[in-house]
Every structure is written in structure tokens, then in C-alpha cells.
């Protein structure tokens, strides 16, 4: 062993940590007795360890040891800290309030909405709404609006197993997407549908609906794009 090898392999540290096997240890000791640098390093490290033993016994821990025991324990303690009463009590109180509100107010309303007929205005969209030409539609926030969508069943466009819809909000972000199976082959005319937009999701601005057909092998073909300017009342 030479000095550079000892440095590169951190042999002094390995030696003092008892990580060397018998041969490597003897090798290093022979080197240490001849190399003043390694002798000094070994001696200084030994002094540090001996002094540290005394000091570590006296230094009061600043926090419980378990809180500083590495990544795994750190993660575990972070998890346990969520259960401290100072944090957990108000959180549980808030959760109880939310659950109560949902059970007493939200769910009954939703249940009624789901089981009761509702009258939804249909937007007077025309062919002018197709493409980039925009129609302004006035919608009631309380009742929402239904947007008529006509999909031409033209074999020239392609044969599809389903149609996909993407609704973009005035910020240009995808607000909703959905799929509907295509009607049986041989149907003529347009596939007429209504896209019902509940009042809660409506905002003033330009909405757009993109429709594409999905073929038997999953290939997607753009078919239609509607854009309309929505004005929300109430």
C-alpha cells in the first residue's frame, strides 16, 4: 500500500471504523508505521474519536434521537407529527363540519337533482357555431344549458366505433371529456346529441367543443369543432 492508495480509499477511516479485513489491516499498519502522513492522520483521528466519546456523553441531545434517525425515521416522524393534538383537533373539527354539511345540504340537493326531471334550455346554436365562427349563447347559472351537437354520419368521413368529445373552457383548458358509442352502421343523416353543461361549471367566455371519431383500431379522426361565446346570467 502506498500513501495515495491510502488516501483514495480512505483507509485511515476504514481502519479506525474496523472495516478492513485482517490482511488489509496488517497492510495498512505496516504502511502507517512508515508513512508520517498516515501516522499523523491515524493519530489525529484516534484523538478525535477519543475526545468525541467524552464530549458526546456530555452534549445534551437537542431533540429526541428518534427524530434524527435518518430518512426512514424522519419520514415516520413527519407522519406521526400529523397526530399531534394541536394539529389534529382543529382538523378533525373541520372534517366533522364538512361531513355534516355534505350530509345535510349537498347530498340531498344532488339526490334531488339526480332523481328529478329538470328543464334545461337548449342553446340556439346553428351551423354558424361550427368552425371558427362564434355564436353568443346566454345561459342561466341555475339551470345550466344544453348544447346541440350534430355529428354527420357520412361514410366518406370514416367508419367509427365511438365518438370522443372534448370541452375547453374560456381559459383554453380541457374542462371535460367523454365518449359515446357510434350508432349502428347504416344509420343515415346526422347523429344528434346534446351536451348538457351544468350551471356550476359555466363561466363567461368562449367555449369550444371538439369531436373526433375513433376507428376500430383506435385511430382518431377529427370530425367537428364548435365554438361559442357564453354569457352567464344570475
Amino acid at each position, binding site marked *: 500500500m502506498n500513501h495515495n492508495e491510502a488516501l483514495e480509499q*480512505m483507509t*485511515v477511516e476504514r481502519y479506525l471504523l474496523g*472495516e478492513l479485513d485482517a490482511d488489509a489491516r496488517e497492510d495498512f499498519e505496516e504502511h502507517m*508505521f512508515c508513512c508520517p502522513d498516515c501516522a499523523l492522520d491515524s493519530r489525529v483521528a484516534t484523538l478525535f*474519536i477519543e475526545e*468525541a466519546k467524552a464530549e458526546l456523553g456530555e452534549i445534551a441531545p437537542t431533540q429526541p434521537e428518534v427524530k434524527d*434517525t435518518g430518512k426512514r425515521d424522519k419520514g415516520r416522524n413527519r407522519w406521526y407529527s400529523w397526530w399531534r393534538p394541536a394539529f389534529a383537533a382543529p382538523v378533525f373539527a373541520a372534517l366533522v363540519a364538512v361531513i355534516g354539511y355534505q350530509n345535510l345540504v349537498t347530498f340531498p340537493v344532488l339526490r334531488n337533482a339526480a332523481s328529478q326531471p329538470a328543464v334545461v334550455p337548449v342553446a340556439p346554436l346553428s351551423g354558424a357555431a361550427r368552425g371558427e365562427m362564434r355564436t353568443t349563447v346566454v345561459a342561466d347559472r341555475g339551470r345550466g344549458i344544453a348544447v346541440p351537437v350534430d355529428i354527420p354520419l357520412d361514410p366518406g368521413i370514416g367508419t367509427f366505433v365511438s365518438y370522443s368529445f372534448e370541452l375547453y373552457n374560456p381559459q383554453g383548458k380541457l374542462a371535460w371529456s367523454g365518449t359515446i358509442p357510434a350508432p349502428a352502421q347504416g344509420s343515415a343523416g346526422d347523429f344528434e346529441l346534446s351536451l348538457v353543461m351544468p350551471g356550476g361549471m359555466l363561466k363567461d367566455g368562449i367555449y369550444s367543443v371538439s369531436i373526433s371519431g375513433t376507428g376500430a383500431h383506435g385511430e382518431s379522426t377529427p370530425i367537428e369543432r364548435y365554438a361559442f361565446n357564453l354569457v352567464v346570467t344570475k
Partner: protein
Amino acid sequence: MVYLSPPPVVEPPLQFHSFDAVYVESLCEGDRQTQEHFVGYFSALLQVKLRARLQSRHAIEDVRQETFARVFAVLRKEGGLKNPERLGAFVNSVCNNVLFETYRSSGRVESLDLEDRPEPQATGPDALAIVSARQMSDKVREILLDMAPRDRFLLKAVFLEQRDREEVCREFGVDREYLRVLLHRAKQEFKTEYVKRHGGSVPLDAGA
């Protein structure tokens, strides 16, 4: 003859000597300064070597004494050490022999030191040495306090509590390399302070 180990707090600023024919000759002739250096320098290294192998201070001291006795016995023979520059390796190999015999026999190893030579005396700790030792302790404390608490606990578990390294590393979520680097950095910081005070010497106090 007893080869006195200097008192623990004394750290005379002895520089490393190159071990050559002149040094060995001075040693054999009983030059006091050379003998003090030799005993001090190699006492420190023997302590480093023996601390991991022998549990009791008495056993360490016995092996140290016996090693020096045998080394001097050989050196004082006609043509005792053929390669003076291998003095360090020679001391190490003599120590290995003594250790081997100590392991093999629980009885007292008979000393080969038969000559009646004046023993190298070590001076007692003076006020300066005591202050210096205290400052080194303060430096170690400062280094420890600068560490992250986790690193301190890691060192405590390994060195003070002497727990199994593998288990400790697993518990603290670190690997052996982390422990090595932690010790290396602490050593380097301590060494800077040490060298500033003592120059690049190996201290005579053997931490005994």
C-alpha cells in the same frame, strides 16, 4: 527497564524524523532526545494499533513495553537492523509478534529487555500542556456541535455506544460511506487545528 509513556495531556511538538542510519545509531547509543522521540512517536502509533485489539489498558501497556524492549534488544546487537529506513515496519512487526504471543498465552510474556540502560524519562504535564489539551477538547466539542444532530447521534451510536455499524447505518438511513466521510471531515477539521498547534507531529500522549 520501563519505557515511560508520556503523561496523557503532554503533546510536545516533535516533528517526524526520517528514520535513517544516523537516527538508529543515536538510538543505539542512548541519545536521550532520540530515545524520547522514538518512544513518544511509536507509543502513539502502537496505541492506535492496539486499541482495537486489546481491551484493557494494562494489556496495551504490556505489549507496548514488550515491543520496545525487543526492538531495543535487536537494535543494540551488532548489525541489529540492516535497513534503518525500515525502522517503522520493524517496530510494527515486533509488535505483531508480541501480540501473537499475548493472544497465545494468557500468562505474562517474559521481557527480553535484559540490559541496564537509563530509561527515557518523560516530563510531567505543565500548565501550557494542560491548557493545550483543554483547547483540543474544546475544538472537538465545537466540531461536534457544528454537526447536524443526526450526525452527532450517529457518531455517538458508533463510538460511544459501540453499536453494530451495520445496524446503526440501517437505523439512520445512511451507508458505510456516509460514516467514513463524516469521520473524514471531522478528522480533517480537527487536524487543521491540531497542526496549527503542534505542527505536523504525532503527539506523545498516546491517549492511554
